[in-house]
């Protein structure tokens, strides 16, 4: 048994699939995808709503539909092995990847390069400390989505949703269509962090009220949830005395945020970005440890799968180049920093591109809602490398900005990405 692969991809979601295909296209002879689940496709498999692939395929696909496009490409490609129902449990800096699964047992494989594509996980009740009893009926929205869409069971009959992230919004609609009552979606912030189209299509169209600046202060019920106590919060997000009211429900879904799944990244001490919670990457999606690349939700939580695939392609390509020894020791790099009104930006480093043609795409999130605005990227000398006008910008919606590689001079770093009202 040959345990060496040019590129080992951890995670078989859209980021991992795109990375594997791209690595193969760029010359990696033997590629391995390791996927914990029993099927490839990642989170897409449970997203049966449409809204995937508008950019990539100019079509509105369902999540599984989008995944299938890639699975077909995978079937048409030789040289990519997959291990499903198999989990990576440890990593070493010299790229030994230990996997475990019922079929493969416990094995260690080695990669010429490794691509991290583990996606993200949901924040849970513990992380947000809701007092009260601990009855059945409190789920994360994604776990509930999986139950409804893949197993055909419902998490409750009267469902309050805490958090207006996209999964929460989509579940509000899904559960309503399943015959459940959704008395409210609650959001602690003064603005929703879901996509506008989801607020319209999932809440407004079904008459589901969205309470902004409200949160759950207690969960009631001994065996099963019987209700929640809701309060309005002040600017410091503290409950306002006297604003409490009760909502009867038998289920509380939490859609209170996603965090990159970085356990394995920690094992090899990759530098993490406190703003995205994912590893710091350069424009080739190489992390702080040479030979380790990352793409998709493990780097930063994406809104649209199209960009996840795109990022996977970049990571896969450069992983293949690295494995072939073609990367060279690029010593020069420029940091990419979030400036005024920008919360985070990816990639966090710029190292240039092999042939220096074409564009480099930066993804950013603004730190506050803005109306008509301009997003710019400039270097240390203040020279503006690119700018983009937007009618509105919200922290919940990722923004892309493209820069010509030929326009960037690394010695004039750091680059700063900023937003300003116009």
């Amino acid at each position, binding site marked *: 048994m040959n345990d060496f692969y040019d590129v080992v991809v951890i995670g078989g979601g859209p980021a991992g699939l795109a990375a594997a295909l791209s690595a193969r296209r760029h010359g990696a002879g033997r590629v391995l995808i390791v996927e*914990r689940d029993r099927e490839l496709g990642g989170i897409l498999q449970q997203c049966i709503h449409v809204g995937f692939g508008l950019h990539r395929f100019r079509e509105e696909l369902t999540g599984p539909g989008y995944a299938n496009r890639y699975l077909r490409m995978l079937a048409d490609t030789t040289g990519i092995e997959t291990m499903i*129902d198999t*989990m990576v*449990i440890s990593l070493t800096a010299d790229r030994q990847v*230990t996997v*475990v*699964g*019922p*079929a*493969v*047992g*416990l094995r260690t494989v080695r990669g010429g390069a490794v691509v991290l594509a583990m996606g993200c*996980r*949901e924040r*849970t*009740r*513990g*992380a947000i*400390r809701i*007092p*009260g*009893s*601990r*009855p*059945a*009926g409190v*789920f*994360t929205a*994604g*776990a509930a989505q*999986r*139950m409804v869409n893949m*197993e*055909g*069971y*419902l*998490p*409750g*009959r009267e469902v309050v949703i805490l958090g207006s992230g996209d999964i929460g919004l989509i579940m509000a609609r899904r559960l309503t269509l*399943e*015959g*459940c009552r959704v008395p409210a979606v609650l959001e602690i912030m003064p603005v929703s962090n879901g996509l506008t189209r989801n607020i319209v299509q999932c809440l407004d169209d079904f008459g589901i009220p969205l309470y902004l600046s409200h949160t759950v*202060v*207690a969960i009631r019920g*001994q*065996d*099963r949830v019987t209700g929640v106590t809701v309060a309005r919060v002040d600017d410091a997000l503290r409950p306002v005395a006297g604003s409490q009211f009760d909502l009867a429900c038998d289920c509380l879904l939490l859609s209170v945020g996603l965090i990159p799944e970085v*356990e394995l990244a920690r094992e090899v001490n990759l530098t993490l970005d406190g703003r995205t919670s994912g590893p710091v990457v350069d424009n080739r999606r190489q992390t702080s440890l040479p030979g380790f690349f990352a793409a998709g939700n493990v780097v930063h939580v994406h809104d649209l799968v199209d960009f996840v695939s795109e990022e996977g392609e970049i990571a896969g390509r450069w992983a293949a180049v690295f494995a072939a020894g073609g990367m060279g020791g690029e010593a020069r790099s420029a940091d990419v920093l979030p400036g005024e009104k920008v919360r985070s930006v990816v990639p966090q480093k710029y190292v240039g591109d092999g042939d220096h043609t074409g564009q480099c795409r930066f993804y950013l999130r603004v730190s506050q809602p803005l109306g008509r605005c301009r997003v710019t990227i400039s270097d240390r000398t203040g020279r503006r490398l690119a700018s983009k006008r937007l009618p509105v910008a919200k922290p919940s919606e990722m923004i892309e900005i493209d820069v010509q590689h030929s326009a960037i001079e690394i010695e004039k770093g750091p680059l700063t990405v900023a937003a300003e009202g116009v």
Partner: protein
Amino acid sequence: MTADNREKLAVQDWPGRADVVIVGGGIVGCAAAMFLSRYKATVVMVEQATDLAMGTTKANSGIIHAGFDAPPGSMKARMNVRGNRLYHELQPALKYEVNFLGSLVVAKSDDDLKTLEGLLDRGRQNGVPDITIIDRERVLSREPNLSRDVRAGLWAPTAGVIWPFGAALAMAENAVRNGVKVFTGCRLEGFMLDRRKICGVRTNKGDIACKLVINAAGRWADEVSRWAGDDSFSITPRRGEYILFDKSVGSLVNSVLFPTPTKVSKGILVSPTVHGNIFIGPNAENITDKDDLSTTAPGMEEIISGARKLIPDLPLAAAITQFVGLRPVASGDDFIIGPSALVGGLVQAAGIQSPGLASAPAIGELVSEIAAERLGLVRKPGYVEENPDRPAFAELDSRQRQELIARNPLYGRIICRCETVSEGEIVAAIHSPVGARTVDGVKRRTRAGMGRCQGGFCGPRVVGILARELGLPLDAIVKEGPGSQLFFARQTLRGGESHE
């Protein structure tokens, strides 16, 4: 159909008669069952909840106290010191998780120093081994994160932390292996009496004729006793709230840290758990509802500020969950252990508040001796002391993991990623002598769902495994108690709606 199925599962080989019935499957009942299983006798333990050790035993500080708190001569003092010793002795055979990492009572004022001297003296009278007072420097070298204004500490090396559920289960499994019958979901509802002498018990599953009943019903022990005709004591629940922290802050403290105690309570403590997390708590509040297990916002603040007196820099962002325990405090304050003065055939193990966990093996031993003496029981040949090994994926090295997966591939499927728990372990927990029937039961036995994400990811998968292994539909699986169903079938819902 499903309810029937469950019913059948539970009441197969229902015993019509027994020598001894133990009421309550907490740590005390389980210890009693284990010690009684050394005798030739028919022993039945009934527990009303869907799993063992879900009363006070489930949510407490998990500390095996050294035994210096209780007044010399009290039942508490005697049981605690003996219990601590038994936990040391029984571990190799029963294999529960325990860590004897020692405890430190921290003194900060002149008054505290006086109290410390008093505790030292008490401890010596109670027969606690190796306790000493250590100076500030040695305290801080043991506990570098401790508040700088510490003056001295009472060091007790025999104290430890245990996982109470694991200990209770280990004792119960040993008891079952040695012939004791355990029924969960079985509630004692009354007695059959013959002139103020017990001749049987009534339960929701049927009657059992018996000669002797051990009352280990925790915070309901007063009620059980009253039904038999002994109303000599009552029990008040006293609430204690906790916050549990992630393992990432596990090195914050190295031993069990107490503030100098007051009359009401041992105070808010900071301690490692046996699994390497850290917890703070408990506060102490008398309440009336014996089922009120909710945490409160003021309670959280109280324990946070209390814990800060010991450890000023609390890593609050690493808090992963919070929980509540209810202490069963008896009217007389000491444990009530021994034959009832009012009813024949009733042996009390009641009012078992703190340090009841630490004392439990000693209490179990004592009540089994009383029962043996009353019924003239003799030791049984072939008693099996040892519990078999239970492989836990997370604790094995690579070679052991490989062997295990080769024997049973289910050990290669990781279900809980936070704690690295495999499907094999979950299946084993379901089919063990006192097997898991609920999601929380699986969690307690395997740690699946105990980690950072608190079951967000593995919870639904565990429901699926339980359903498959027990031959039940998914919507029959509960989290814990009856009515704590997790998922609903789609059709039921639609059907339900169409009637409206």
